[in-house]
């Protein structure tokens, strides 16, 4: 315990910021924002430090910190990251920092807003840094509340009211987590019986779950698939996503689309797949099929949208379909692709939402036909928007291409024709991404937007930070894959070992 508790600091820095903010007078808006920025920045800096000092030679779970908590349930406050969770932890820390700046202009009750935002960031972060199922669930439930409040108070009403959107999102997440809980409790009960002593750590559960019967594995996986699937907006449990994003304030959309969805994918890999490999093998084709459905379906639906946030909302559903497909391929390449793609999508979706947020803030509309010609008046926002659009359509050289490519390879290997349908999705993606960009930004400039101010100062931070990650990650994919490899290779080895014991279907 002599070491500096890096992960704990990363986790608690936003909480500390929230606490400080709680004691600041509500009029000190700038100070409040600075505190939030400082908290999230600490988190981000340390996350980068963690990411680059993670020893890829050794691999495994590193930066471990264990505090026994509830003995009777086998719960340990077990912090640690490996190649699967590290990229996602980095992602949330980056997004958290950017989200603070993306909401720099929040004027309505800024103190409450930033406190909730910081709590939200911590909650999401917690799910990624823990190696204990109970703590994972705890943090996950912690996330739901701030999101709901943030949408209800600071959201915007368009096609659906913000209350409806917030309610739908929250209830969906809760239903998902209720199913999840059923699976987790069942898993816990059964494994505790097998182990003799309760153990909630992922590794312990996985070890015990090997002796579960095939039927148990299958039904538990199904329950978890539903839980995590509705979290990752798996088709057909996706409809909260576009509405929710449309209703949410910018920062929430960023964090939600960027990372919160990824908790679903992460959980699917880290818990469902790792602990219940036999179930995973049974359900893999279903996952892949639903993933492909999501890809095509949501891409087509995005094509019909006129509201920028709806476009990105559907697009993120579509992209999560790729993740499902990749997870369904049950191979190292697929899992690598899935995790890297989650990271990539987090960055680009966040950039997209932050730019849309700025556009909305300045023009007070997100309705594409009402926009147009903006690139003359607000070139920096437009550049960011186009960057995000191009990343969305998987342009090589940006962060999303290589993960997409690996996913395609893995999926193609396993599912052939099904994967072709998913790959065809890239055409539709290009169509809607470019249409959105073209109709909103290009074309003849409109007079009513002549007075608009381009982003400057702190508002530039999301663009700079996310844009840099977007490009650097695209040019040097090995930065991402070297770390992810450390997580997926042992994971897949365990899964394969378990499958060999469990026998074939």
């Amino acid at each position: 315990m002599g070491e500096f508790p890096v992960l704990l600091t990363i986790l608690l820095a936003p909480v500390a910021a929230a606490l400080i903010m709680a004691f600041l007078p509500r009029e000190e808006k700038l100070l409040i924002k600075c505190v939030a920025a400082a908290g999230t920045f600490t988190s981000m800096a340390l996350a980068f430090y963690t990411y680059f000092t993670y020893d890829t030679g050794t691999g495994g779970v590193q930066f471990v910190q264990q505090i026994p908590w509830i003995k009777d349930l086998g719960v340990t406050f077990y912090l640690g990251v490996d190649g699967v969770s590290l990229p996602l932890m980095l992602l949330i820390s980056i997004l958290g920092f950017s989200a603070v700046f993306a909401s720099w202009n929040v004027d309505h009750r800024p103190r409450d807003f930033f406190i909730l935002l910081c709590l939200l960031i911590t909650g999401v972060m917690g799910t990624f840094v823990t190696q204990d199922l109970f703590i994972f669930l705890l943090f996950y439930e912690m996330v739901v509340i701030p999101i709901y409040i943030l949408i209800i108070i600071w959201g915007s009403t368009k096609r659906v009211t913000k209350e409806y959107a917030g309610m739908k999102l929250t209830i969906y997440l809760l239903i998902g987590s209720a199913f999840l809980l059923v699976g987790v409790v069942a898993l816990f009960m059964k494994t505790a019986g097998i182990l003799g002593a309760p153990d909630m750590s992922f590794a312990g559960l996985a070890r015990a779950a090997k002796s579960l019967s095939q039927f148990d594995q299958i039904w538990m996986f199904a329950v978890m698939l539903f839980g995590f699937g509705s979290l990752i907006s798996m088709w057909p449990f996706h409809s909260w996503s576009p509405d929710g994003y449309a209703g949410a304030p910018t920062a929430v959309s960023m964090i939600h689309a960027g990372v919160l969805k990824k908790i679903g994918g992460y959980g699917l890999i880290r818990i469902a797949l790792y602990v219940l490999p036999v179930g995973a093998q049974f359900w893999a084709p279903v996952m892949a099929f639903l993933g492909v459905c999501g890809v095509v379906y949501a891409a087509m639906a995005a094509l019909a949208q006129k509201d920028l946030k709806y476009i990105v909302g559907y697009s993120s559903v579509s992209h999560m379909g790729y993740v499902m497909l990749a997870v369904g391929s049950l191979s190292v390449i697929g899992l690598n692709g899935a995790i890297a793609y989650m990271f990539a999508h987090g960055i680009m979706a966040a950039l997209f939402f932050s730019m849309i947020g700025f556009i909305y803030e300045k023009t007070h509309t997100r309705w594409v036909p009402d926009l147009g010609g903006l690139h003359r008046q607000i070139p920096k926002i437009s550049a960011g928007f186009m960057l995000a659009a191009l990343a969305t359509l998987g342009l090589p050289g940006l962060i999303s291409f290589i993960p997409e490519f690996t996913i395609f390879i893995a999926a193609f290997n396993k599912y052939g024709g099904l994967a072709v349908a998913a790959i065809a999705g890239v055409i539709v993606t290009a169509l809607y991404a470019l249409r959105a960009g073209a109709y909103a930004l290009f074309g003849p400039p409109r007079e009513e937007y002549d007075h608009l101010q381009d982003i400057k100062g702190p508002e530039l931070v999301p663009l700079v930070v996310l844009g840099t990650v977007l490009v650097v990650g695209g040019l040097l994919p090995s930065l991402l894959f070297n770390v992810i490899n450390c997580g997926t290779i042992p994971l897949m080895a365990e899964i394969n070992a378990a499958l060999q014991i469990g026998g074939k279907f």
Partner: protein
Amino acid sequence: MVEYAMNHAWLIPLLPTLAFVAIIFLTRPWPLLSALIAVGAMLTSCFFATFTAIGVFTSPELTEKPLVYAVNWFNMPGMEINVGILLDPVSAMMMFMVTLVGSLIFIYAIGYMQDDPGYSVFFSYVSLFAAFMLLLVASSSLVEMFVGWEGVGLCSYLLIGFYQHKISAREAAKKAFITCRVADFGLLLGMLLLFWNFGTLDFAALAEKIPHFQQYNVSAATLALIAFLVFCGPIGKSGQFPLHVWLPDAMEGPTPVSALIHAATMVVAGVYLVARVMFLFHEVPSVMQLVAVTGGFTALFAATIAVTQREIKRILAYSTISQIGYMMLALGVGSLTAGMFHLWTHAFFKALLFLGAGSVLVALHHKADVWEMGGLLKKMPITGWTFLVGCIAIAGIPPFAGFWSKDEILLATLESGHYVLFAMAAFTAFLTAFYMFRLFFLAFTGAENPANHPKESPWVMTVPLIFLAIFSLVGGWVGTPWANVWSEWIFFGHPHHGEPNYMVMIGSVVLAGLGIYLAYYFYCADREKVKVRELARRYQGIYTLLYNKYYIDEIYLWLNHTLVDGAAKIFYLFDIYVVDGIIVNGVAAITGLFGEGLRVTATGRLQNYALVFFLGVLAVFVVLAFTSPLLAGPIWGGVR
């Protein structure tokens, strides 16, 4: 120097990239400085490329065994992707050509883009474009090439849509990108299949493995499928039928861009790709056949459209499509030499023609209709005469460059026994001469249009024209049938010397001459153009069909708007009304219904609640008491 250049060939794509970064982030407020940086980077690249080319061409073994400098890009179990530079004659030639033509176009753009508000941005984009193009050319693996491939697509999107305030430019840019994207879908699938079957995407490794494809349990049918899918990419990028529609529309961009994209570089990327993976196509004759037919058909098809077009750059665009069809035809009949040779000469004369057209457009304030021009030769002598050189070159009159390469293609087609394709190609040669001189006569000779006040362009624009005109003349001399140096450098398999076939040569010159004469007859000699109007009237149907480009754009537009958008609408409505409306809100409604039903129980009266509460207690109590095993015997109360 040569060795240094070869060892540092990676600098060739890198320098324009740096120029892009520098311009975008640093020198944007200073247009001239930006231009100088871009031109400087390009010239340095050209310098390196020249020495690299010299180095490659002095070591003949590189054709068999290309020089590869590669580093690992990323890897994971079962997948290792390298990036690097591959040097062989083909890539060296391409690099040299791209940097050379690129430099000239950049210099030209200094003048052409004068007074444009987006001056710096323009130079940053074209630098990026050059960088991606060079990456594409120099890449050592298919993935890396795909990066460049999509990168040039992106840049062409940005550049075609450079005048973004124009709706037509915006639409053209989008169309270009998406059309290519459709094609790239095929390419991507092809890549995946290649990777799946051979486990690598490095050109060198693939070149070794594919000839022995049976060893890797790959059936010939699969290989044919792969080849076909890979060929989809070039169809889109090189504007082959049926995905040629984006290319004419792409003329919305600034003229240097048209020259850069349509003449020298991007559109020939498809040809280059086919040449690069010739080892794949070579194994599947059926797809080779397809390549040849596609090329031949496109050549003829585009040429017929070009005959009736009125906008100067559109004519050139269709001519480009047609010429690339030639290149494809050459590759398809198995002559890499001829295809690449035509690519090389075409780069010069088409760049020349586009830049000349740009010069005309500047002088006429962007009035593009050739029927409204006339007599420009006197007012703009340099532009006019260099344009004439370009026309002669493309028409295929010896000793200009186009003649040699076209001759090579015709010869290769004939030798491979594709007589129908040969006939099509020959007829296309005739049409090419006709429509190019139609353009020339309409624009540069005849009566001046009094509405125009043209004057010669500044020297930054005319000097590149002169240089290009020189190259259009001498560029073909490396590959004359008598002393064919070209075929010793650039070939697939083994060098192939076509015997000089004078029949073909004379035949093609005669056809070209006939075309030029007809153009002269209709458009120059007949000053009032009565005959040609008469002709158009008589064949009204054909004329309209040609003028409207066989209505292919309309068909696509209809498909896009009706089918794709319609399907999108259906999906969206399905989402709103079925998934959301029936399922999600349905579940919510059922829940709500239950709530509604149970609401009456919430009377708000405490005593009601207490009553029910006691009933519940009673029930629990009874259940506990009467299911307890104790009740079987006497219940023991009190102390035990």
